[in-house]
C-alpha cells in the first residue's frame, strides 16, 4: 500500500461531511473543557486540535459494559454484533495502545467479542497539535512503533491542507469522499517534520531510556515501604485503570431480566486498584485478598505497566498518554513520577554502597582484544575479571592503572548499551600510557570507575545533535556516537565533525567507513595537512561549518585539544547557538578522580567529579577553564 495524498484545507470540511453522510464517523469532539471520542454529526464538531480524550478509543472495541451472552431459560446465544465504524483522528500513542490490546485479546485464544469490533473499524490517525498536560509519549517506549491503523492524516503547519498517508485498503477507500491528489515530496517532508517537531514539544519527563525501566522497577518489588508511601493517598478508585488505554481487565456478572427467566452475562471494565479485584471467596463467608493493601495494588499496576508485559509488547505497556496522571484525584498515579522516584532510589543505594568501599581499590580487567589504531594509539576491548557488568554514561571516565607504573584517567570509548565489555583507547605519551600500550590480549590492567559526569543524555534526547571531535577527542565521543546510532529515533538530526592532524592519525577506520555510508548520520571529516592520496577535505575543523546547515536549536558537543575550543565556539556563535546548548569535554591532569586531590580543580569545579563534560555556559567565565 503506502500511498500519500493531499487534500486542501478548504476541501477538508466537505470531505468530512461526505464521510458523515455515508459512514458511522467517530472522532474527537469537545465536552465542556475536555475532549471525548464520539459520533460526529457535522464537520464543525471534529476537533483535531484536541490534546487527549477522557477515555481512550478502546471503548469502541471493548466497551465499559458489554453483553457476552443472552439466555432465555431454553436457548442462549452470543452477542457479537459489530458495527462498522470509522475512528478518525487517533493520536499515535492511542494507535500504539490499540495495537497492544489487539495483541492481548488475540494471544492464545482470540476474543471475538473484542476482535469483531476491531475488524469492523477503520482507524485513521492524526498528528498531535496540542500536548496534554502530563503526557510523556515523547520519551516512553520509543522503541515501539505505532501500527495496525489504516491511514494517518497530518495537518501542515502553514494551514494549506492535510497530508493523508494511506496504509491499508480500508484507508484508501476514504479517498472517494474527498478531493485528494498525490502529495508532493515537499508536502510529505513537511508532514514528517510536523510529526517530528511535536515529539520535541512533549516534555522529556523520563531522563533515562525505557529499556532500563523494567529491570529497575522489578528490583523494587519487595520494597514495601516504597509502595506504601507511593500509595498513601490512594482511594482505590480504579480511575487510573479505567482511563488507561492499555488496561483491559474485566469482570463478568450474570443478570436476570425482570421476567426472572431471561437474562444476560455481561462484562464490565474492572480495575486492579480497587480493593475487590484480587479477593478470592473461600466460601462460608470468608475470603482472602491477595492484594489487601493500597501499596500492593499500586505496585501491581506499575508492574503491569512497566515490567510484566514488556516481553510480549516489545516495550512498556504504557504509552505515556498521561490520562491516569491527570484524572487521579489524589494526584499520585503519574507513572513518570513513580519511575523517576525508583531511578533515584537506585542512586541513593549507590551512595550507600560506595561508603563501604575503598575508593582507591581498582578492579582487574582482562584484555579481550588489542589493536594498534595508529602509531601511538592502542585500542583495547576489556572485560572485568570477576565477570561483573559495566554501566557508564557516554563521556564518563575511569582510572586505568598498572601497579608500579601508575594510574591515568581515560574515557570510555564504547557504547554504554554494551555492558559485558568496554573499550578504551590509550595514546602512548608517558610513563603509564606507554606501559599500557605494551599490553596484549590476555594481559590485565586495573581500573576504577565510572567517574564523573558524562554527556547529559536527558538534555540531548529528542534533540538535533552535532558532535565536534578533534584528534583523540573521538574516543570519548565514540561512546556517545554509538549510543545515538543504537537509538537513532530518540534523537533528531545527527551530525559529526571529525578532524585530525593527518590521515595517519585517523582512528576507528571501520567506524569511519560505516559512518560515511550511513543515512543516519551526517558525517564530515577533515585533516590539517595531507599528501595527494587523500581525497577528503583539507583544513582545520572549522572549515567543516560551511558544509553543513546547523539549525539553531542544535545541541553541540565539543571534545578535542584545548586550542580547538575557542575557534569552534566562534563558529557556533555565528550560527546562533546558545552557550547553554554547547557541552565541552575538558581534559585536566587528574590523580584521584573523585574530587579530593585537587589536581583537576578549575575555580570551584572539579573536572573529575563535576565534569569532564560541562555546559559551556557553566565554564566560559571561569578563569583557567579554556
Amino acid at each position, binding site marked *: 500500500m503506502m500511498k500519500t495524498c493531499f487534500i486542501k484545507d478548504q476541501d477538508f470540511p466537505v470531505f468530512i461531511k461526505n464521510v458523515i453522510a455515508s459512514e458511522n464517523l467517530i472522532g474527537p469532539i469537545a465536552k465542556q473543557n475536555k475532549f471525548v471520542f464520539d459520533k460526529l454529526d457535522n464537520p464543525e464538531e471534529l476537533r483535531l486540535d484536541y490534546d487527549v480524550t477522557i477515555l481512550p478509543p478502546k471503548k469502541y472495541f471493548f466497551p465499559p459494559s458489554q453483553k457476552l451472552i443472552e439466555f432465555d431459560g431454553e436457548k442462549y446465544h452470543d452477542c457479537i454484533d459489530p458495527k462498522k465504524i470509522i475512528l478518525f483522528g487517533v493520536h499515535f500513542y492511542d494507535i500504539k495502545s490499540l495495537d497492544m490490546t489487539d495483541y492481548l485479546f488475540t494471544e492464545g485464544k482470540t476474543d471475538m467479542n473484542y476482535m469483531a469490533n476491531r475488524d469492523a473499524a477503520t482507524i485513521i490517525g492524526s498528528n498531535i497539535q496540542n500536548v496534554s498536560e502530563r503526557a510523556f509519549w515523547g520519551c516512553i517506549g520509543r522503541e515501539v512503533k505505532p501500527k495496525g491503523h489504516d491511514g494517518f492524516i497530518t495537518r501542515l503547519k502553514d494551514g494549506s491542507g492535510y497530508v493523508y498517508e494511506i496504509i491499508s485498503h480500508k484507508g484508501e477507500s476514504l479517498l472517494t469522499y474527498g478531493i485528494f491528489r498525490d502529495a508532493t515530496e515537499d508536502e510529505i517532508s513537511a508532514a514528517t517534520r510536523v510529526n517530528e517537531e511535536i515529539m520535541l514539544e512533549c516534555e522529556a519527563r523520563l531522563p533515562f531510556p525505557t529499556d532500563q525501566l523494567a529491570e529497575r522497577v522489578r528490583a523494587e518489588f519487595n520494597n514495601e515501604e516504597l509502595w506504601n508511601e507511593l500509595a498513601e493517598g490512594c482511594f482505590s478508585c480504579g480511575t487510573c485503570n*479505567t482511563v488507561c488505554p492499555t488496561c483491559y481487565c474485566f469482570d463478568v456478572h450474570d443478570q436476570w431480566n425482570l421476567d426472572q427467566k431471561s437474562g444476560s452475562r455481561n462484562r464490565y471494565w474492572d480495575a486492579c486498584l*480497587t480493593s475487590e479485584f484480587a479477593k478470592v471467596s473461600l466460601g462460608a463467608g470468608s475470603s482472602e485478598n491477595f492484594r489487601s493493601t493500597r501499596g500492593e495494588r499500586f505496585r501491581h499496576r506499575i508492574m503491569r505497566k512497566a515490567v510484566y508485559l514488556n516481553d510480549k509488547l516489545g516495550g512498556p505497556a504504557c504509552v505515556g498518554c498521561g490520562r491516569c496522571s491527570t484524572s487521579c484525584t489524589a494526584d499520585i498515579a503519574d507513572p513518570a513520577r513513580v519511575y523517576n522516584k525508583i531511578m533515584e532510589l537506585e542512586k541513593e543505594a549507590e551512595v550507600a554502597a560506595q561508603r563501604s568501599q575503598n575508593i582507591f581499590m581498582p578492579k582487574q580487567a582482562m584484555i579481550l582484544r588489542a589493536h594498534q589504531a595508529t602509531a601511538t594509539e592502542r585500542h583495547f576491548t576489556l572485560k572485568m575479571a570477576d565477570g561483573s557488568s559495566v554501566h557508564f554514561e557516554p563521556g564518563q571516565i575511569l582510572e586505568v592503572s598498572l601497579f608500579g607504573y601508575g594510574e591515568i584517567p581515560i574515557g570510555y570509548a564504547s557504547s554504554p548499551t554494551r555492558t559485558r565489555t568496554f573499550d578504551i583507547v590509550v595514546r602512548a605519551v608517558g610513563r603509564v600510557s606507554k606501559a599500557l600500550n605494551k599490553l596484549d590480549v590476555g594481559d590485565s590492567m586495573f581500573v576504577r570507575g565510572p567517574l564523573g559526569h558524562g554527556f547529559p543524555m536527558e538534555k540531548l534526547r529528542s534533540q538535533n545533535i552535532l558532535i565536534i571531535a578533534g584528534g583523540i577527542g573521538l574516543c570519548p565521543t565514540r561512546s556517545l556516537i554509538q549510543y545515538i546510532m543504537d537509538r537513532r529515533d530518540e534523537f533528531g538530526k545527527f551530525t559529526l565533525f571529525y578532524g585530525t592532524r593527518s590521515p595517519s592519525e585517523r582512528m576507528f577506520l571501520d567506524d569511519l567507513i560505516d559512518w560515511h555510508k550511513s543515512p543516519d548520520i551526517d558525517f564530515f571529516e577533515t585533516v590539517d595537512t595531507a599528501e595527494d592520496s587523500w581525497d577528503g577535505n583539507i583544513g582545520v575543523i572549522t572549515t567543516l561549518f560551511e558544509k553543513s546547515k546547523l539549525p539553531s536549536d542544535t545541541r553541540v558537543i565539543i571534545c578535542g585539544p584545548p586550542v580547538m575550543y575557542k575557534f569552534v565556539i566562534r563558529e557556533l556563535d555565528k550560527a546562533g547557538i546558545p552557550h547553554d546548548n554547547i557541552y565541552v569535554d575538558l581534559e585536566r591532569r587528574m590523580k584521584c578522580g573523585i574530587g579530593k586531590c585537587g589536581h583537576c580543580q578549575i575555580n570551584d569545579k572539579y573536572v573529575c567529579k563535576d565534569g569532564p563534560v560541562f555546559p559551556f555556559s557553566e565554564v566560559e567565565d571561569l578563569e583557567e577553564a579554556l
Partner: protein
Amino acid sequence: MGKPKVGFFDFSSCEGCQIELTNYGDADFLELLNHIEIVEFREAMSEKADHLDIACIEGSFTRESERKRLEDIRARADVVISFGACASTGGINALKNHQSDFKEYVYGKDADSPHLQSNLKALPVEAAIKVDYKVLGCPMDKYEFLNIVSSLLHGKTPYIPDYPVCVECKRRETICRFDLGDHCLGMVARAGCGAPCPADGIPCEACRGFVTNPNEDSLEKVLIDHGMPEERARTKSRMFTNTMRSDA
C-alpha cells in the same frame, strides 16, 4: 413454590425510598409484582403475616423503643434487607449524631415534648438486628433493588460493588467535578448507583455511604488542595456517612 412473601416496614425516614420503588405504578414495579407477593406494607395492611420470606426495612433506628419491633420483624423473616440510606447507614438522620443542640435548633421551644424523645444517635437497622442485605442510596436505586430481589428469587447471593463511585463515573466518561473547579466525594462513596450525580453536573455526596476502607485522610487533603476550607473539608462527608466515619 408460591411467590415469596415480602413485607415493607417503616422507621425514621422520609419514605422517599418506597416512593422511588413504587413510583406510582411504574412498569418495572408492576412486573416485579408478578414474582413477589407483598403481604405487609408500611402497616397499611391490617393483616400481619406469621412468616415473611423477605422483610424490607426503611428508616433508621433512632429510639430504644423501636428495638422490640425490629426484633419481631427479624424473628418472622428469612431475609432482612435494609432499604435505603437511612436504614443501611443511618442516612441523613445521623447528622445529629455529633451534635447536642439539634432538638432546640429544629423545634425551638417545643424541644422537650415527650414525642420528640429519641436516642442521642440515629443508627442503621443493623445496630439492633442482623441485616442480610443492604440497598444503599438516598433514595435507594430501584434497579439495584430489583437486582437484589432477582438474585434472592434464584437463591443467588446478590452482588453489590464495593468500589468507589469514580469507577462508574469514569465508565460513563463524565468530566470529573474536580476538573471543573468543584469538589466531589465519589472517591470514597460506594458505587452501584451508576454515578448519576456527576453526570448531571453535581458532586457525589456519598449518599450510598463509604466503601470499605475509605481513605478519609486523603479525601480531606484533596478537598483542601482544591480550595475547600479546612474545617469544612474535615466534616464534608458527614451528610451521609456520619456513622461510618472514623470519628463516629
